[in-house]
Structure formats: C-alpha cells, structure tokens
C-alpha cells in the first residue's frame, strides 16, 4: 500500500432522509461500491454531473465524511479511526467550490496561515510556509490584500495556498472552477498543474469541464454513485458516445474529430487537442 495515496474499497455512503414527523422516510445511496486507487504523485480527474456522487466521494478523502460501508484509506490510514483524523486532514487538503465560503481570514496572508496555526506550527515557520505557498500559486504580491477585493480565480488560488501551507501530500479539489470565468478557470488549473509537477503533490480534481482533465494521468467517470469509466484521458475521450450518454461534455476538438469520423473521415481515436486534430487531418493528405 506504500504507493497509494488514496484507496477506496467497496466504499458505500448512504444518508437517510426524514419526513416531517422525523421518521425515516428514505435512504439515499450517494456512493455505491466504489473501488479506486490513486497513486502518489498522480493527477487524477473525477468527472460526472451533479448528483453523480463525485463530491460525496471527495469528502471521504478528507474524512469530512466516513463510509457507511466499505473502507477508505488515505495515506494508508483508515478514515474511520478517530485517532488518525487530524493526520488525514493534514495529508489530504481540500479546496471547495465557492471561493467566498472557504476563506476565513480577512487578509490574504492571515488566511493562508490559518491551517498551520491549527496544526500548532511555530510562528516563524508559519511565516515561511505562508510565503512559499503564496509564491507557489503566484499570489505573493496580494498577501496584504483583503480577499473580498480579489477576483474569483485569485480567491481560489488563495484557498489553494491555504491548503499548500499545511504541507499536504495530496490536494482534493471539489469543483474549484465551477463558479469562475474562463480566465479564472485557467489561472486555477495552471496553479494546480504546477503543484502537481513542481511540488509533486498528488492532485484529485473534481470537475465537469472537459478541458481541465486533458492533462490528468487518469480520468474517473462517475454516474449514480458508481465508477462507470476509468482510464487515461485519451481512452476516455475515444468513447464519445458513452460520454454523451452520461450527459458529459467532450472537448470541442474531440467532438469535431468524432463528427468527422462518423462522416467517414479516417482519423485516429482519442484526439484531445486542436493541435492533434489539425495534425491528424494534415496526415490524411
């Protein structure tokens, strides 16, 4: 288990709904028998539309939720064991969707220091960590700013820095770009990729924007609580029909290639970027 950052085995998460009199009315199974491994240093993307269980699964990786069935190990530790709780939360940091609702500090640098403060890191080291984390997401020059004055993409990078300052081995990002404009989305993805490549932090990115998963080592598609597809981006995107059936988007270049193939043009499978498509079309001549 040494190389597995996150490992889920037969993971089930059910929650109960109560009716107005407080009686148990309904049991909903949000995550259904998920078995999944994420290797250390990997960049894994989890796709699926709202209600597919991807966010619920993500919350297990930080022990915010614990499985009602099966097991979840984070860095080799069972998330159900209370004793490991803070260790797990420190080694698997989490970034959420709404940038406003996860920033605690009123000054950028104070917010980044919040995690290390909770961990009991000595003052001098907190300052060092804050500085290097803000540098890692390219936000150092905003350190004295109020988060309220930043753009969405900048706020989200501050939130990422806040997690990086806790020196995690893994970062789980739960739809970090859903509320951002295209420029903000690019900024955040660039920062996340840099963390993965430069700092070698394991990244688990939950999203429904296809352009963001092109760079992943592995893509996992979820539907109705189950893992329904798993593979490299190229493998996943060569199954356009299946993705469409799950009501997921496909990158425009892939979609165009798919349409051309349907019309009889001889193109290879799994085209992801527009450069690849142009190149493949030129090869035809």
């Amino acid at each position, binding site marked *: 288990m040494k190389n597995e950052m996150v490992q889920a085995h037969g993971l089930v998460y059910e929650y109960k709904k109560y009716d107005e009199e407080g009686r148990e009315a309904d049991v909903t199974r949000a995550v259904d028998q998920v078995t999944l491994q994420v290797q250390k240093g990997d960049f894994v993307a989890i796709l699926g539309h709202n209600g597919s269980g991807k966010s619920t699964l993500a919350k297990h990786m930080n022990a915010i939720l614990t499985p009602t069935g099966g097991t979840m190990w984070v860095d080799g530790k069972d998330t159900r064991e209370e004793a490991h709780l803070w260790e797990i939360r420190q080694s698997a940091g989490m970034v*959420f969707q709404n940038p406003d*609702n996860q920033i*605690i*500090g009123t000054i950028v640098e104070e917010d980044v220091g919040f995690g*290390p*403060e*909770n*961990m009991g890191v000595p*003052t001098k080291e907190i300052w060092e960590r804050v500085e290097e984390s803000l540098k890692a997401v390219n936000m150092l020059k905003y350190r004295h700013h*109020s988060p309220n004055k930043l753009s969405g993409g900048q706020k989200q990078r501050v939130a990422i820095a806040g997690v990086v300052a806790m020196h995690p081995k893994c970062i789980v990002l739960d739809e970090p770009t859903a509320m951002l404009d295209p420029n903000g989305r690019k900024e955040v993805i660039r920062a996340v990729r840099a963390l993965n490549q430069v700092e070698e932090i394991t990244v688990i990115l939950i999203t429904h924007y296809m352009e963001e998963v092109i760079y992943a080592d592995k893509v996992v598609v979820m539907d109705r609580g189950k893992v329904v597809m798993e593979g490299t981006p190229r493998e996943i995107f060569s199954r356009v029909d299946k993705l469409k059936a799950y009501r997921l988007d496909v990158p425009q270049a892939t979609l165009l290639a798919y349409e051309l193939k349907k019309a009889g043009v001889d193109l290879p499978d799994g085209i992801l970027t527009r450069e690849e498509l142009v190149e493949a079309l030129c090869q035809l001549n």
Partner: protein
Amino acid sequence: MIRDITLGQYYPADSILHKLDPRVKLSATLAFIAALFVAKGWPGYLAATVFLAMVIKLSKVPFSFMVRGLKAIVMILMITVVFNLFLTPGDRILVQIWKLRITDVGLRTAVFMAIRLIYLIVGSSVMTLTTTPNDLTDGLERLMGPLKKMRVPVHEVAMMMSIALRFIPILLEETDKIMKAQIARGADFENGNLMQKAKNLVPLLVPLFISAFRRANDLAMAMEARCYHGGEGRTKMKPLMYVKRDYAAYGAVVLFLAVMITLRIVL
C-alpha cells in the same frame, strides 16, 4: 445605504496606528469613550477634539471614511438632540414655539450630547478602520484571557466575531443583489405603511437567511478540513507582542485621561 456602515471595515494604510498592538487600540478606545463622559465644559471637549484630530491625522485614513459611519446613526443622533433640546429644563428660555421651549441648558446639553455621540462613533471607527478584524479579535481574546478561568469560551467568541466581520461585506453585497432581483420581479421595498413594509421584506429576508446558513455550513466544513479544532494547541501567525511604540501609546492615552480628569476637577 447599508454600505455606509464603516464599523468592521478595515482601511489598509501604512501608519503608526495600523501598526499598534490591538490591545492598545482597544484600551485606548475604551479610555476615550470614558473620557467623553467625564468631559465637562468647552475645555474638556476641546481637549477631546484635539486628541481625536491628532489620532485621525496619524491614522492616514481619509476623513470622509470616518464620517461615513455617522450616517448609520443619524436617526439616533436626531432623536437625542431633539429630546435634549426640548425637554431639558433651564433658567433662560431662548425660543418658544407653542408648548415647546428651548432653554440655554437644553441647548448646551443637546450640543454636548451630539458631540459625544459623534466622537464616540468616529473614535470607534478609527479603531476598526486601522485594525484588521483578526487583530481586533486577537486583541479581545488576549484582553479577556483571564475570563477563561471562569469558563467563558473566550477563543470561540473571538473566532465567531472574526468570522462575522469577514462575512458582513459579503452579506451586504448579497442583500443588495437579492433586493435588485426582487425589484426586477416587481417587488416594492419603499412604499406602503409599516406593516406592509415589514411584509414586503419577506422575499428579501428568506433568501438572505438561507444563503447565510449555506455559507455557515460551507465555512464550517472548510474550517474542519483545515484542521480547525478549537483554541487548544493552536499557534499564532501573528502573536501579540508589545513593542516600544505600544508603551508610548499607552503613555499618551494615560496623559490624555489625566488631562480630561484634571479639566473636570478644575472646572
């Protein structure tokens, strides 16, 4: 309208006041408020004015920001002035309209009450404008530290205040947005009698509360994810430590208080 509330609105600038320890600023604000109620006669108010003017100058915060906080209390201010003006008995009647009379004492009390209230708000604004909410709560936490022994949850209260302060601007913006959205659906927040007005607020308040609860829920989760587990074993990024300028500031405040008390006794 609601944006005019300056309390809790930090104004970033590089001044000696910004750098002061929050405990100094908190104590000084309390001392200043106490002094306002000690003040008697023109010399006392003159001394308070000089002190406040100096502090404002030192803070490097534009004067217009200080005054903005006053808009929120205009009503209270008016009522206080009117009550004091007309209801204080005095020796000489200056003006009499029907049954209402303004006496010399009334006029004096009204003016002094107005000055007190204005200075109180401006004085507290200086503190909040120059102190980040985090510093402020840190300062409070430390000043109230001894209460921990009496099982008062000082850290929790401080954390709650700090979060409230961070979310005030966000919720104000949200109020504005929901208001506009409902106006676009034909809602009317301006006309009607008091009952109708209160009823008309429902489309604004319900979404606002729901949003506040959603944010609270998200925030609690985000804090837990970042290992927050109360004040126990927590270190500080910016621990409070007194330096020379803080002692000097304490000195200045004590001096000011002494002047005010002397003026009161002498006059």
